[in-house]
Structures are given as structure tokens and as C-alpha cells.
């Protein structure tokens, strides 16, 4: 005991620090944690409770057993194809948004007056909202719209132009509303990558393409996956433009329309809940798949060293 007592006496300060650190750990409670309570309550009341309520409701159908709603969904020709219809819209829209935004954002990685103009222009569709975009598109892309009139007046294309009230109308609107979101998100990821890395690569012989492939793309991959997920979830829950710009009775009868009809036309909240749960499940599946791909990539900080 004597040696340890002597060393403790020799280093009173270190010993004291050690004591206070264990004391905090033993107590195991940091009052600052209480700051989490409002947010936790908020999540509980506005997210967890409605979700659980809907989940339970979906297992309490108007008639039949607990799984009757799900059974009905997958056997009804009016319901289960909506998953495919929605995917057919959401997937291409997401892919276009992410992979068109990527090269443009890459070109704009250096600050310039252009970037400010472009960013300002792109924020506009985000603030407008889908309904206003649909309104505008109806007058612009419609059979008697400006685009059609211009193409015919210029004799560039004389056939009938059908870009509204069908699949293409909805796809275009998903791109218009989703592209700025994807672009701004990717731009912020790209500008977060230290440009000195690309310069280092260039002194080592990497041209612009190689810099993108070996430096930017691997460092962006986790961000791209995240952007893909957010853009996909946004596109998958398409509703207003599928009604206003699409053919809601046929080719663009997306899953949210099916849920809406069940809830507000058939007043079957239980079935509507089941459809909403399935919608969430499909989204979750895709998101989980894409995020699991992130495990293949480097996920650490994107700086070049201590700065």
C-alpha cells in the first residue's frame, strides 16, 4: 500500500482529476440530457404515436381477420399494381435528379457569380410547391400551351404534343420539383470536400476526369446515397402532381392515390392505413438497400489532414 500512497501523494493533481472523472461516470447522469426531453416528446406525440396508431388500425379491418387488409391489397387488381406504378415514376425521377444534378454541381464546385445565380434560380421551384408547378406546367406543356404553340409555329414538330395528363407530365413535374433539391444537396456535399485534395491529385498527374473518379466520387458516395434516399422518398410519395398532371385513373394511379381513395372515398380508414404502411415499407426497403451500399464506401471526414 505504501508505494501507491506515495505516488498518489506525489501527484495530487492527477489523482484528483482521476477521482472527479470517476465520480461523474459513477453518477451516470448529466443534467444537460434533460434538454432532449422536449424533442423526444415532440417525436413521440407527432410521429411515433400516429405511426403506431396507423399500424394498429391497419390490423383492424372492417371485416375479416387481422391480415384481411393486406390480403385484400395484394389480391386486388386495383391496389397492388400501384406499387409498380409509383416505382416506375419515382425511380426514373430520382435517378434523373441525382445523376443530372451531380455533373452540374461538380462543374459549379468553385464559387462563382454563376453559382449564385444558379442557386437562386433553383431555389424558386422549391419554394413554389408542387401545386403551383403543376398549374404552370398545364399551361406551358399542355396541348394548347406555349411549348406546343411555339414548336408548331416554328414548324419544328407538327404532331400533337402530349406532355400533360399522362406519365410524362408527372415525371417532368417530379424532376422540376425534385431536381433543385438534389442539386443543392449535392452542391453542399461537393463544396464540403477540401479542394486542395483535387489540387494534390492534379500535381500527381490526375486530369479533371481522374480527379472526379478517384477523389470526388468516392468521397461523395455516402452523400449521394443519402441524397438518393431523400429524393426517392420525396418522389415516391407523389400525390398532387399525379392527380393534376397525370392520369389518376390509369397510368399514374400511384399508391398515395389508392390510400386517399380508401380513406376519403370508401371511408375505410383501416384499409387506408394498411396501404400507407405498405407505402412506408416499400420506401424503407429501398432506403435500407441504398444505405446498406454505403458500407462499401469510405465514410470518414472529407478533409485532407488537420487544417
Amino acid at each position, binding site marked *: 500500500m505504501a508505494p501507491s500512497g506515495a505516488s498518489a501523494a506525489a501527484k495530487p493533481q492527477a489523482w484528483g482529476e482521476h477521482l472527479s472523472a470517476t465520480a461523474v461516470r459513477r453518477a451516470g447522469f448529466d443534467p444537460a440530457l434533460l434538454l432532449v426531453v422536449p424533442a423526444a416528446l415532440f417525436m413521440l406525440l407527432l410521429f411515433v404515436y400516429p405511426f403506431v396508431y396507423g399500424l394498429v388500425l391497419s390490423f383492424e379491418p372492417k371485416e375479416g381477420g387481422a391480415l384481411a387488409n393486406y390480403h385484400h391489397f395484394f389480391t386486388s387488381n386495383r391496389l397492388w399494381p400501384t406499387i409498380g406504378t409509383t416505382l416506375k415514376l419515382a425511380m426514373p425521377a430520382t435517378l434523373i435528379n441525382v445523376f443530372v444534378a451531380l455533373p452540374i454541381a461538380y462543374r459549379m464546385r468553385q464559387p462563382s457569380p454563376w453559382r449564385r445565380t444558379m442557386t437562386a434560380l433553383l431555389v424558386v421551384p422549391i419554394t413554389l410547391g408542387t401545386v403551383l408547378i403543376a398549374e404552370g406546367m398545364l399551361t406551358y406543356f399542355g396541348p394548347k400551351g406555349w411549348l406546343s404553340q411555339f414548336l408548331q409555329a416554328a414548324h419544328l414538330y407538327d404532331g400533337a404534343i402530349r406532355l400533360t395528363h399522362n406519365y410524362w407530365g408527372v415525371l417532368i413535374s417530379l424532376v422540376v420539383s425534385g431536381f433543385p433539391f438534389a442539386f443543392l444537396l449535392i452542391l453542399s456535399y461537393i463544396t464540403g470536400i477540401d479542394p486542395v485534395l483535387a489540387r*494534390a*491529385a*492534379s*500535381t500527381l498527374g490526375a486530369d479533371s476526369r481522374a480527379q472526379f473518379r478517384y477523389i470526388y466520387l468516392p468521397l461523395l458516395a455516402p452523400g449521394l446515397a443519402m441524397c438518393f434516399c431523400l429524393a426517392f422518398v420525396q418522389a415516391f410519395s407523389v400525390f398532387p402532381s399525379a392527380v393534376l398532371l397525370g392520369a389518376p385513373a390509369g397510368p399514374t394511379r400511384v399508391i398515395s392515390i389508392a390510400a386517399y381513395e380508401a380513406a376519403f372515398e370508401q371511408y375505410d380508414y383501416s384499409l387506408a392505413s394498411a396501404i400507407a404502411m405498405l407505402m412506408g415499407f416499400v420506401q424503407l426497403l429501398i432506403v435500407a438497400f441504398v444505405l446498406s451500399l454505403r458500407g462499401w*464506401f469510405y465514410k470518414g*471526414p472529407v478533409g485532407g489532414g*488537420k487544417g
Partner: protein
Amino acid sequence: MKHDFNELRLEGVTRRFAGVGGNAFNALSELNLTVRRGEFIALLGPSGCGKSTALNCIAGLLALSGGTIRLDDMRIDTLPPERRGFGMVFQNYALFPHMSVAKNVGFGLKMRGVPASQIAPRVTQALKLVQLAGQEHKLPGQLSGGQQQRVAIARAIVIEPPLILMDEPLSNLDAKLRLETRSEIRRIHRELGRATIYVTHDQDEALSLADRIVVMKDGVVQQVGTPEEVYAEPANLHVARFMGYRNVIELPVEGERDGRVTLASGDIRLSGVRKLPLSGTHAMVAIRPEEISLAAPGAHANVIAGRVDNVEYGGRDSLLEIVTPNGTRLHVRAPGRFDAGASVFVHVPPERALVYPQEVH
């Protein structure tokens, strides 16, 4: 891309930047410099003096606003950095965070299309040179700052560049590591014999590493010379201040003969060596603290009386701040221990008191 050269010639290299409110300014004006094969050049100056701008212009990371850069007879200032093939070491290392040490070091070889079977042995050899053998599979984030900088050096030299550029490579390291890495850089330069241009704001680094030093201020070269020349014979007052001539005193000129100038004012009477033609009634004298010595009491030539005002203990010696009765302050490095308030006499060797013309304000 060449593997070696005889001369890198910079002629009138100028870089202008757009300043605030459309006031363009020259970050670098009319830099003329010839770097010979195997030479170690240090660009030295305070921050904002244009030394990093010069390095980036040579690397190709900044376009020139004027002038030319030639590697022997080949004009290179119009080539993009990836076609110049110079190795560069950055201040913050700029290691690729998603690649292992081996991949980082091998990157330049891969870009040059070297087969993978030849990359591995060359990477191993380069890592051995910077004493990092066995760390191949770590990510940069798992290494210490000093190790990261050595990986960056290995990455720059493995491509066997004709010229190695270093942009303040030691300024992010702590004092001890800085000294170690400095000797390492010196050793690597001796072993490889590659021409190196090294940017620093630390005169000790420049003096200890370089064959020639280029001292810069406000984008203009002030002096180009060997470490001995720049240390002992600063071309002007800016260089003198930067090279550690901490005592710069303005005094009236009493007389001048054979390059010896006598300056006198009240309690100070000094004679020194004229370094530049004088104009006006006053001149500036520059003296290093370590070249002033303590003297016996009495009124001899170049002896100044004063009182110790402040003492900084420095191990083998102390840095004293001495105030003369008229209030002139002198920094003196002297062996032994001193107490503040003591009266002392100091002697300034006339050949080490450098006299420059008065500064124009």
C-alpha cells in the same frame, strides 16, 4: 514530363489578383529566378509576401498574369499541373482520406499508368525512405500529423519528379516534430538530389535547409543569396528585420568615412558599416541581439549604458531588454543571470552594426 533538368527559369513571373472593390493587386511581381539541378531553394517571407503564390504558379495551380516559366528549353507555364509532373507537398498534407497510405503514395504512379506489379515495390521503397515501412494499410486518419506529412512527402517523391515543391510542410507540426521532420527533409534531399523549392515563413528552416534563400515581401523579391549571405549581409532593412536583426534604431548621421558611418544622439554613439547609400540626416542601424556583448563600465567606442528592464530566461543565455537613459530600447542576448533594474554596459561590434538609409514612410 521530364525526369531531370538543368535549369528551371522563371522570368518576370507575375500574378495579379482582383482585390476588394475592383482594386487589382500584384500578389507576385516580376519574379526572376533560376533554379539549378539538385538545388534546394527556400522562398522566405511573412504571410502575404507572395511566396505561396510563386509556388502555386510553378506547380500550375495558379495561372500567370505575366512572365514565363521554362524547364530547360521547354515552356511549361501554359501546361496544366497534371502535365508538369512536379511533386508537391501541401501545408495541410492533402492526403486522400479514403485511400490507404499505400494507395495515397501509389496514386501518382497509377495516374502515370505504371502497372500495379511495379507500383507496390516502389511504394514500399518510398515509405522506407520516409521511415514509414509497415504502415501501408492504415488510413491517413489513423496516423499522427508527423506521419501524415511523411506520407505526403513519400507521395510527392515516389513519382521521381524533376522538381519537388513544398508549401510550408512543417507549420502544422509541433516544435519537436518540426525539428525532426526538418532533418528528415534535408536527409531525403541529400539522398535523392532532386531540386526542391521550399516555402516557409521561418528563417531558421530556410537557413538550415536551403542552398539559396529568396527573401520576399509584398510580392517583390528583396534578396537572393546563400544562407550565409542572407544571414550576415541582409540587402535591406526588410530582410534584416526578417532575419532576426531585432534592434533597428533610427539615429542622426554624424559622419561617414570609407563605408564606416558614425551615428550619434544623446546617450548613444555608434559606428557601423554602411550597407546602402545613405540619404538625409538620419539613418537606421540594425543589430542582432546575439551580436551585442556585455562590456566593462566606462565610455569606450560603441559602448552603450543602460538599465535592464526585462529578462527572458533562455537556458544557456537570457534575452535582456535594456533601456538607455533617453529611453531607447535594445534587445541583447547574454549568458548568465540578470535581475531587472540592474545597470549594464553593452558593446556593439562596429562591423556587425549594419547601417541602412532611413525608411520612407
